[in-house]
């Protein structure tokens, strides 16, 4: 039988506020355990939550970016369950009336086809604390620093049909929240995590199959692997006459499999009701318009502009606009280099990005600034150095040996463009290699590369490659 996969994602994006959603405690990551858990976060008797204005603004911004309806009235509800890292015995969330309703996000698939994914809702809620199960004399340790951190839970429609689509959607959302500067997107620290609802059904069937929910996936790779494993598991189960059980599962990255966590049947009885401690949230059109005016250029628009303005390929524009930081850096180099946007693109995507990756640095930490890189690229454009030598200069700049011109000067790397000087070297090379010359002339064209290599070697790579090619061709053809 042919099966169709149906996936919906719930993504929790931690909002980049300074203080918590309902208290004035700090949200900074990495503090001493419980140093940022105040009486409100601990749920002590008599405390009252007061909503953080910035969290609301961020939710509105997100809603506008996905073309959603911003609810003029929304309601906070209590989601009741018991767990030690949830001190109140309930999580404050939104249930029937979320702040963001019915948006869409376009994703691009590998074959270049664009697909629109529905976003059912995005709602504000508080995060729980953290349980540490290492041994504390048979007890668990609870750190409530994260309790009360604002989250935006973004729930997609079951519109995704493969693990690849799910990853494309998640990456797009990840880029979007970072463009909007509402979430730092740090997946290791749990600022952006994903639950995947996965089911399969016979191809052509309208009815949804029973789904399993895979919890807490915190990398793109895990999302893809966990979903693919889960699809295989469910199909094998159904084809052998079994049935999928609705349950929560965890992905074990070491074994590459999902396993049952707990049956969701009972846990599902959250008995939501409106939180009497919080009044309804009103969002007026003034705030919405203010947020709309505040929206930055979004990834899709920026990509289209890069294609047009810099005549880049769709692929290059996609890579360069993947993050706002990289796009800004690229534009700063183009501006400082006064042109050659394709050359700049190659360098920013190539040597520059490779060096960042190699040294595990963010763009902000780059030892080579946009202006410094532009100065280097200008030396390629004006023929002072070749592209190959530029790589050497770049590495020296990266290592802190100074600006491009200083490095070129000190290392004597200025390109040789003097025709007579290059001709002289070519003559010497030809004279020193009579055997290869004879072979070349008898039709072994491949030896051309050998001669180029010898000339470059004699000039320490400084001869202008285009001139070497032209002169060498002429000289080898002479009799």
């Amino acid at each position: 039988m042919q099966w169709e996969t149906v996936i919906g994602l719930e993504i929790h994006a931690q909002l980049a506020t300074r203080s918590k959603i309902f208290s004035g405690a700090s949200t900074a990551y990495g503090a001493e355990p419980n140093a940022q858990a105040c009486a409100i976060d601990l749920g002590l008797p008599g405390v009252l939550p007061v909503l953080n204005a910035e969290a609301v603004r961020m939710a509105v911004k997100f809603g506008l970016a996905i073309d959603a309806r911003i609810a003029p009235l929304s309601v906070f509800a209590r989601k009741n369950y018991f767990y030690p890292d949830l001190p109140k015995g309930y999580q404050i969330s939104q249930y029937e009336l979320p702040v963001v309703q019915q948006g869409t996000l376009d994703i691009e698939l590998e074959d270049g086809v664009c697909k629109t994914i529905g976003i059912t809702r995005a709602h504000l809620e508080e995060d729980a604390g953290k349980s540490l199960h290492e041994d504390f004399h048979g007890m668990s340790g609870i750190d409530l620093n994260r309790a009360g951190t604002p989250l935006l839970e973004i729930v997609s429609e079951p519109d995704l049909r493969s693990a690849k689509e799910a990853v494309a959607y998640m990456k797009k959302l990840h880029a979007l929240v970072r463009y909007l500067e509402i979430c730092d997107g740090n997946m290791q620290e749990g600022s952006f995590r994903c639950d995947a609802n996965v089911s399969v059904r016979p191809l052509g069937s309208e009815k949804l199959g029973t789904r399993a929910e895979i919890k807490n996936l915190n990398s793109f790779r895990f999302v893809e692997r966990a979903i693919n494993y889960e699809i295989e598991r469910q199909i094998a189960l159904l084809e052998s006459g079994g049935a999928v059980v609705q349950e929560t599962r965890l992905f074990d990255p070491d074994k590459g499999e999902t396993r049952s966590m707990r049956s969701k049947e009972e846990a599902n009885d959250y008995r939501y009701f409106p939180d009497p401690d919080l009044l309804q949230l009103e969002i007026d059109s003034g705030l919405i318009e203010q947020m709309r005016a505040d929206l930055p250029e979004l990834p899709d628009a920026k990509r289209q502009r890069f294609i047009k303005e810099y005549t880049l390929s769709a692929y290059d524009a996609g890579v360069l606009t993947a993050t706002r930081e990289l796009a800004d850096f690229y534009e700063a180099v183009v501006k400082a280099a006064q042109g050659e946007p394709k050359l700049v693109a190659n360098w920013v995507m190539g040597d520059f990005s490779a060096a960042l990756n190699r040294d595990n640095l963010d763009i902000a930490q780059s030892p080579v600034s946009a202006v410094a890189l532009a100065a280097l690229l200008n030396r390629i454009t004006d023929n002072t150095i070749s592209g190959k030598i530029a790589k050497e200069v770049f590495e020296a700049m990266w290592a802190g040996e100074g600006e491009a011109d200083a490095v070129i000067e000190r290392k004597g790397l200025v390109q040789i463009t003097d025709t007579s000087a290059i001709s002289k070297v070519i003559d010497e090379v030809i004279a020193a290699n009579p055997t290869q010359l004879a072979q070349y002339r008898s039709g072994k064209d491949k030896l051309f590369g050998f001669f180029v290599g010898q000339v470059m070697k004699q000039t320490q790579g400084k001869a202008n490659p285009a001139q070497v090619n032209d002169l060498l061709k002429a000289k080898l053809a002479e009799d």
Partner: protein
Amino acid sequence: MSLNKDDVVKIAHLARLAIDEQSIPAYAQNLSDILAFVEQMDRVEVGGTLPMAHPLDMAQRLRADEVSESDQRALLQQGAPAVEAGLYLVPKVID
């Protein structure tokens, strides 16, 4: 709406309340009476009325995003039965 024994057991479990076996019928009766009392309101026509989320007809006041709480861990942990290395200790929980 009337609650049976199983409903009572389930509600007690969700609320983490320990109840003894003999009192279950009484709880079932009392809870069913409360529900019957509230059910009288089902006769009111509310088709065109928005559900009320809060009895006060006011909007939520918002707070500026500023850190206003200092670290009071030492004070707050005085009330905890067990702490270690800054953590609150609780009976072991594993998913």
